[in-house]
């Protein structure tokens, strides 16, 4: 297998973009990543696009072809383009497919992108589309919602470990603090613990400010074999590991309600692949679709003992400047969560951090970063490790 490097990245702005279409935003991200890499589009050997549900959000399937076409890579060039889906982990999967294509030697210059356009439908329709990431026949039919499933994880975490609503809220407060320094973030406002606790209850114990929003956005990056990465950029960021794991589709079938075994398994595989431990990681972008999800993630990835994620957050150890900065982008909570794009956005954020390009939210001396992307309530997890050093 060949070593692989990221040579170009781009996030669009994240938010409610009434004036822009699905194809507009993903083309902006793709063109931006190509520009950042210094390659020319016709040099691409392939594209992998993460998208959860074009079918439900914009009544569009055949996403791969659409994007290649509107990027100017179909007519004459006929560059292969593949859509990849694993609910909210679609972006992470697209990256992994792209890395494997380059590592295997089958393709050289490859784009990995992610996109979701969620605000063209009502929020009720968007929620129904997202619910399809859970078990439609045995969870959805009983009235389960996504906040409801994560609320059941939160309730159990509180019961077993004494985690508090204030500790959940501390995740949102910290992520808004980080997001306030990210120019692409959907919500750049800072919030307080009281703001979270006084916001409306969605699914007890999760308030609306414990939940990530509905977002439009796209992200893209360009990969190259590590041996030629320096031909394109002075700061290639190397892919040290890309790992994926599966678990039961329904929350009720999990071994342990408060552990995402897919996260644990993908994390272990990634650490093994990179020959690293949690102590080697300087920052991590985790999948905080709900505040409890960030607490479970930092536990499942080995940054803190099971049950102590809430306390670690409350103590400020996951803030920029803390022991392990978590979600410097603002995370899904503040930066926004265009579901198919999120996995790629996390990689763009970590790449920019490792390049030293993150401005006021820069983690000093960041050398190694991790991303963690989850599909559904934990049925798919993707964990990647990036490094400045090969």
């Amino acid at each position, binding site marked *: 297998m060949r070593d692989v490097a990221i040579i170009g990245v781009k996030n669009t702005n994240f938010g409610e973009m009434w004036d822009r279409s699905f194809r507009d935003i993903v083309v902006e991200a793709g063109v931006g990543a190509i520009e950042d890499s210094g390659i020319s589009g016709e040099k691409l050997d392939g594209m992998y696009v993460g998208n959860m549900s074009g079918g439900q959000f914009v009544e569009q399937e055949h996403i791969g072809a659409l994007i290649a076409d509107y990027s100017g890579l179909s007519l004459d060039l006929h560059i292969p383009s593949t859509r990849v889906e694993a609910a909210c982990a679609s972006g992470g999967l697209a990256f992994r497919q792209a890395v494997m294509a380059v590592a295997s030697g089958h393709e050289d210059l490859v784009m990995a992108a992610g996109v979701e356009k969620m605000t063209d439908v009502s929020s009720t329709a968007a929620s*129904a589309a997202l619910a399809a990431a859970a078990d439609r026949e045995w969870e959805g039919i009983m009235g389960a919602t996504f906040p*409801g499933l994560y609320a059941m994880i939160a309730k*159990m975490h509180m019961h077993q470990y004494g985690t508090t609503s204030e500790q959940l809220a501390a995740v949102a407060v910290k992520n808004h603090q980080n997001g306030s320094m990210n120019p692409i973030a959907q919500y750049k406002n800072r919030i307080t613990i009281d703001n979270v606790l006084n916001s409306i209850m969605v699914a*007890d114990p999760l308030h609306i400010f414990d939940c990530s929003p509905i977002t439009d956005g796209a992200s893209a990056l360009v990969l190259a074999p590590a041996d030629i990465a320096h031909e394109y950029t002075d700061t290639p960021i190397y892919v040290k590991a890309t790992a994926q794991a599966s678990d039961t589709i329904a929350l009720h*079938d999990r071994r342990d309600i408060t552990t995402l075994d897919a996260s644990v398994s993908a994390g272990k595989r990634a650490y093994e692949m990179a020959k690293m431990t949690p102590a080697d990681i300087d920052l991590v972008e985790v999948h905080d679709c709900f505040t409890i999800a960030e607490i479970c993630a930092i536990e499942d990835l080995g940054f803190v003992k099971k049950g102590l994620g809430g306390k670690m957050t409350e103590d400020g150890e996951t803030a920029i400047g803390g022991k392990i900065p978590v979600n410097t982008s603002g995370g899904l909570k503040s930066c926004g969560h265009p579901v198919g794009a999120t996995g790629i956005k996390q990689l763009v954020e970590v790449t920019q951090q490792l390049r030293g390009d993150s401005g006021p939210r820069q983690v000093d001396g960041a050398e190694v970063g991790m991303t963690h992307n989850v599909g559904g309530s934990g049925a798919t997890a993707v964990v990647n490790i990036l490094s400045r050093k090969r």
Partner: protein
Amino acid sequence: MSVARFWRKQINRYNIVGTHCKTCDTHYYPPRNVCPKCRRDGDIEAYKFAGPGNVVTYTIIHTAAEGFEMQAPYALAIIELDEGPRFTSQVVCDPKEVSIGMRVKPVFRKLGESGDKGMIYYGTKYVPDNDRN
């Protein structure tokens, strides 16, 4: 959910019928045709569950799923049947009464409907088993 899709699992939803693997003596509800522990060595048969169980975890849903607006707030829970398997259902009572570990028993209830003229879905919800709490 389409008529056929609901109808296929009607007996399972109405009667709490799942499956049982004779090889490893594990019970499954919702039903599985392949035992995840034994896979091809498994020997699956239909199994009717007794019904009662415990609340493993729960939430009170205030922002309802589409079609459940009239029910909000409602208690969604993961129930562990006495034979072992866990599944998702609602606990029908004052949501404030629900707690982790409480004993519950099944009741036959309407789950939802496909609009004014569509089919009505029925299935199993749970109520507190006050004799045993």
